[in-house]
């Protein structure tokens, strides 16, 4: 049995990390999209309404990760996680949960911003392909956000499905399980940064390529899908290691 204040402390620090880290990347990403839209408006003032709409849709998609982190942050603050029976397991799990969704949103926040920004530039270059570009942008942003969903999954599991600390356990055993829970959050948090960034950048480049190519968009979209599947693989390794840390060890 530990002081419930320690569990609350952990929840508050975790909430700060979650929302802070997630907002950092989304801020950059949304700015990137607005920059692309402004650049294109200067080139094609007559389609400014379409560009403005694409900018807002792209920014909303780029902020999804931050909103997920905000939800976890609010749960950490007001979810009532101060039952002292949770013990050190709960302290570690809450911290891991905040780190997981906070770091996990960095990749997709910036990645979806890179996709949206390059899409806005591409729309300014070839106004007659706007519908294709917008569709491809949303697909790319969704792919880049899939890794944030892994982080959200681990984050929610750490919040709601970690065991209570059994009574009368030796200190060593408590430290072992608590550290495993914390490491699980750290692993998927860092692990999804790279894939989110990579897939976002890839989807943006593929839209620039669609704008440049006359016909054969399908070929480029195929490469985009293959590329993002391969890019996703390291995030899946991190997810597997997180699950092993949470349930096997």
């Amino acid at each position, binding site marked *: 049995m530990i002081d419930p204040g320690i569990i609350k402390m952990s929840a508050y620090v975790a909430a700060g990390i979650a929302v802070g880290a997630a907002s950092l990347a989304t801020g950059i990403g949304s700015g990137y999209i607005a920059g692309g839209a402004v650049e294109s408006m200067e080139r094609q003032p007559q389609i400014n309404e379409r560009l403005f709409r694409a900018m807002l849709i792209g920014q909303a998609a780029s902020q999804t990760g931050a909103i997920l982190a905000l939800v976890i942050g609010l749960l950490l603050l007001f979810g009532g996680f101060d039952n002292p029976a949770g013990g050190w397991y709960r302290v570690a799990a809450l911290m891991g949960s905040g780190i997981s969704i906070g770091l996990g949103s960095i990749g997709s926040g910036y990645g979806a911003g890179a996709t949206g920004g390059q899409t806005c530039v591409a729309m300014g270059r070839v106004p007659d392909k706007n519908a294709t570009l917008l569709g491809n942008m949303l697909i790319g942003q969704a792919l880049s956000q899939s890794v944030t969903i892994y982080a959200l999954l681990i984050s929610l599991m750490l919040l709601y499905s970690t065991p209570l600390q059994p009574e009368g356990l030796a200190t060593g*055993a408590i*430290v072992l399980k608590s550290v495993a829970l914390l490491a699980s959050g*750290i692993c998927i948090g*860092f692990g999804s940064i790279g894939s989110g*960034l990579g897939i976002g950048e890839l989807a943006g480049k593929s839209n620039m390529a669609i704008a440049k190519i006359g016909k054969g968009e399908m070929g480029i979209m195929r490469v985009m899908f293959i*590329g993002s599947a391969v890019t996703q693989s390291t995030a899946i*390794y991190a997810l597997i290691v*997180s699950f092993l840390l949470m349930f096997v060890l």
Partner: protein
Amino acid sequence: MDMSLIVKAAALLGAGICMGLGAIGPGVGEGFVAGKACEGIARSPEHAGLITRTMLVGQAVSESTGIYSLVIALLLMFSV
């Protein structure tokens, strides 16, 4: 206090950090490669097969460090 369990706990923390940080590089790198492949196909669509093949080989090489991290993480978790 049982010191061997504390050592084991440190190994688990190391495994999480190892796989987490190790996954960043390949993720960014592979995405960058595929983006450049899209640019290349836009410039010369007739070489799409060659470009895709080279992209996959490059991504496999870039993936290798992610696999090193996975191996080390698994070793830290199960055999330290």
